[in-house]
């Protein structure tokens, strides 16, 4: 696997819940991912957001973000995921993938690993295209000043 667990988590945060669960259900159905059980049922909760402001370099609490967290066991590995919003299915699916890649099994299971890699690469591509469009839009509103002599 060319991505680390953390990178996979981050990429999957951009992936729609529907696509994500589709892939995980497929891997479960064919038996590529086995022996999965919920350690902690997906739970909606809040994450406190702390910001360091630049004037006094002080931390303060801006507010909370609503997230869903899930923990699953995949074989002997613990898989974890946190998703923004109310998303129990997305959290469970991402946690399963997190637990699966933590095992050494996927390395020897190239065909099924390819399914995951395909999802990750497609997500990366789409995310960067969106980001690039946004940057272009934002920069089009930059004020161009004439050079003063």
């Amino acid at each position, binding site marked *: 696997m060319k991505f680390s*667990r953390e990178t996979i988590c981050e990429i999957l945060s951009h992936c729609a819940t529907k696509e994500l669960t589709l892939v995980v259900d497929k891997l479960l159905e064919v038996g590529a991912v086995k022996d999965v059980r919920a350690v902690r049922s997906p739970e909606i909760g809040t994450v406190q957001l702390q910001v360091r402001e630049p004037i006094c370099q*002080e*931390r303060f609490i801006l507010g909370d973000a609503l997230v869903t967290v899930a923990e699953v066991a995949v074989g002997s590995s613990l898989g974890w995921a946190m998703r923004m919003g109310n998303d129990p299915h997305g959290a469970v699916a991402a946690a399963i993938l997190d637990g699966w890649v933590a095992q050494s099994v996927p390395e020897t299971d190239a065909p099924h690993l390819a399914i995951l890699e395909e999802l990750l690469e497609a997500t990366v591509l789409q995310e960067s295209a969106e980001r690039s469009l946004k940057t272009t839009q934002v920069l089009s509103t930059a004020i161009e000043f004439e050079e003063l002599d």
Partner: protein
Amino acid sequence: MGYAAARGGLAAIEFAENLVQELRDGHPSSPLETDQVTGRLRLLVDRVMGEAGLWAPEFTAQALRQAEGDVIEAVHLLRAFKSTLPRIGISDVVNADDMIPERRIVPAFREPGGPQILGRSTDYTARMLSTTPRETKPKVQPAGVTPAEESLDVIPPMQRMSDVLRDMQLLVDRRRTDDPEPFDITRMPAKPPAPRSARLSTMARAETGALVGQWYRNILGPDGYLHEVTLGEVRHGAMPITVTHPVTRNPVKIGEYRVTEVEAIEDLDGIDEDRTLFDIGYGLCFGQNERKAIAMANLDIACHRDGQRSELEQSILMTTDGLDSSGFLEHLKLPHYVTFRSMIERKIAVRQARLQTSPTESKP
């Protein structure tokens, strides 16, 4: 268990609820979808999330729909929902400079370090009411720009004005190295004297109108505890949320939220202040809500300069929360039979006492 037959209170409440539901959900127009609210009423959703202190766009849309667009009511629904949720964790501390900007204005300098970007703004749009019944514009690309794959544009680096002034040796250096734990206003009520982190948190989730009102009261009203500032930075953009992966103990980015950030430059002119320097107030709040962030930044520096001399801090901490003020205001609608009976009784008692002392004076 003994319970007397309902005397109508419950029935009336339930019918009132049904009436709200019927007239709202039974309206003949097509139902309002969540993504319509988040997509088309973005600034309203931003404002409600800010005042609720909770980044949750979909639930906010739901709250607004349920509240028929009443901002305070929607904030109430969200905060009450939050009371039922566990706190799952604390994010890694994010620096203000980690923002990916989508807008940046520097009124203090024509050409600051980095660009001035208008971004998504109606600041210079004529406020002409569009009288066409409906907006159905297709997506248009900005003229002359093709967002092709080879478009490698990145937002150029932007030096923040506080750093610029610091480099020019024009800024009071208030940077701390002791890194105190931030005050959590949701766990412990803040009251004066409070640490600055409590004031910043209070203002970040204050009612927008109350904060603007507080600001203007100090500009033109009887208080006058603040100066008009020069704005250094007005930014809007996305901040990352990073948490610690509990198994690997490494940081993981799980998503983003948008904020508005303001630096307000203050011309120090007090007798005990260094007139050769500026100071800066700071504002940061959820979503795109520039009015709120500007008021916050100006009140932040005003409160710092005031240094407990006036009651500005008490006003900020105690009177700007939307749910506190509207809840108390609206409680006046509740029955007060007992208290009012007691008040009438005292009126009569005072009258009788007067009659006893000077019988001629108090004849009604």
